[in-house]
């Protein structure tokens, strides 16, 4: 008896999912995805820029300690919000990947038009990170678990690791040693010294400057772990945005302004 009620319900929903409409054609879908891409990319970009932008602008800021502590937190917020919105509205496990793709396009347009063609910084110094592999992993976890709590815990870890691995691959050549002005430095350090930034003196870098305790060279992994826990916090900030600033207002009105 109960199963046939569920079957009936599922059948009705299936029919509703396949319903033919008079006015709602595919153009609505296209306009939604394309126009939303701008505001999603903008929100993700401004959050990344003003919370963690310096680490993303330059190779010589991508250190073992601060880069991976701050960036995952800053950049998981909007993907989390979009995960909620797109799952709640369409049951699409696409929020993180969509945000990452929009962010990718925004940052590369910015790096090329502004950093490269305006002030002529070489692109191998000011390249933007990619968040897309991290987004794919996080969306896959949402799709499998259908749970935001599990996605916040496992997904934030996947986000952090996915982001670090993807971008460390591109950073690796710049961590090779070279001798410059008689001192052994990395290629990234040399880029920072030689390509003159009038207002980013070298001491301004918030990077690992050596410490008393490096836990037998485990600095990177400690940062990844802490970055993950901060990313969990960032995930729930994003959930607040998705739930209370984007979905809750639907159909709600202030009676007096």
């Amino acid at each position, binding site marked *: 008896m109960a199963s046939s009620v569920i*079957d009936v319900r*599922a059948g009705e929903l299936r029919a509703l999912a396949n319903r033919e409409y008079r006015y709602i054609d595919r153009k609505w879908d296209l306009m939604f995805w394309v126009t939303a891409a701008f505001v999603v990319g903008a929100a993700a970009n401004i959050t990344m820029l003003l919370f963690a932008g310096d680490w993303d602008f330059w190779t010589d800021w991508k250190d073992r300690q601060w880069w991976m502590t701050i960036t995952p937190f800053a950049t998981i917020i909007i993907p989390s919000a979009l995960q909620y919105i797109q799952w709640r509205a369409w049951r699409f496990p696409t929020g993180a990947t969509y945000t990452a793709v929009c962010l990718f396009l925004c940052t590369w347009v910015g790096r090329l038009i502004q950093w490269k063609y305006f002030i002529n910084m070489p692109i191998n110094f000011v390249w933007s990170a990619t968040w897309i592999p991290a987004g794919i992993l996080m969306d896959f976890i949402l799709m499998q678990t259908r749970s935001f709590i599990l996605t916040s815990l496992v997904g934030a870890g996947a986000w952090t690791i996915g982001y670090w691995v993807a971008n460390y691959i591109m950073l690796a050549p710049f961590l090779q040693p070279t001798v410059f002005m008689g001192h052994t430095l990395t290629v990234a350090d040399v880029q920072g010294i030689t390509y003159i930034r009038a207002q980013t003196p070298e001491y301004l870098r918030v990077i690992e400057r050596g410490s008393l305790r490096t836990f037998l060279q485990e600095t990177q992994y400690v940062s990844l772990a802490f970055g993950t826990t901060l990313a969990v916090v960032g995930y729930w900030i994003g959930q607040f945005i998705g739930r209370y600033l984007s979905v809750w207002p639907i159909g709600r*009105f202030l009676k007096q302004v």
Partner: protein
Amino acid sequence: MTQQITQAVPERSEQPAPYDPPVVPGRGPTDWRGGWAWGIYAPLILLGVAVAFRIYQAFFTFPWGLDSSTPQFFWLWRMAVVVSLLGVGIFTVSWWGWLLQTARTIPQRISRREEVRRIAVFWGLVGATSVNLYIEASFWPNQDGAFHQTLVRDTAFTVSHIPMFYLFFPLGVTLAVGTYLYGRTRLPNVYGAGKGFPWSFFLLIAATVTEVAQVAMNEWGHSVNFGNAGAEEFFSVWFHWPFVLYGWLAGGIFALWGETILRLYQIEDDAEREETADAPAPQTVPAGGA
């Protein structure tokens, strides 16, 4: 998918027939050159203005944008602030004024086709607001970080600040409020005055207004010399963070899409109900499972 709706036969013969726009091939409610036209034109115009300003910068930044104490800077850049603010001001007054004035003369009883068309235009305006948010929160801020590596900041009106803070930031307010005025006057079923002030628009408009207000705090922060906060160009400095927090309020834009989609469903249901009103009751098809 789109079908023409025949004019409803007036059951209450005292009321005039609801307004239904004429059928023009290719310019229907959901045709690209019909209801969606402004959804294409408006974003293109905005992007065009941004690109034009970027080209202007390519010619006149080096060296005249580097020293705010020169007469060249005054004419090329401070005047650009004046032109930007005047331009936005004139556009704002004109557009809002037009929306409010024509609200009295446009048809109040409209057909479903016409309402769908208006929702498509509304989506076009929301899209324009979205594109403006991209220009003000991504396109110019990327330049800001780059440009301030070429000089020592000496004025609030730097080359990269001018199109960002004094053109597209205020334009964001214009577009958000204008979109609301369009919704209030053209989509009474969704945003009519009697319903109150929508939370969705409250958040979106608040985002654009607080972003403009934050410009003042930003300039104050850069001019104050405590610690390294003001004098050094650290992009993630604390007095930049309110830009982000206010930007999150723009999440309300998704509720605009949600609210109008729900209205579209209602329109579809009404149309279907009317069509099947005189038809025999359909057989319930037993749910066959997956």
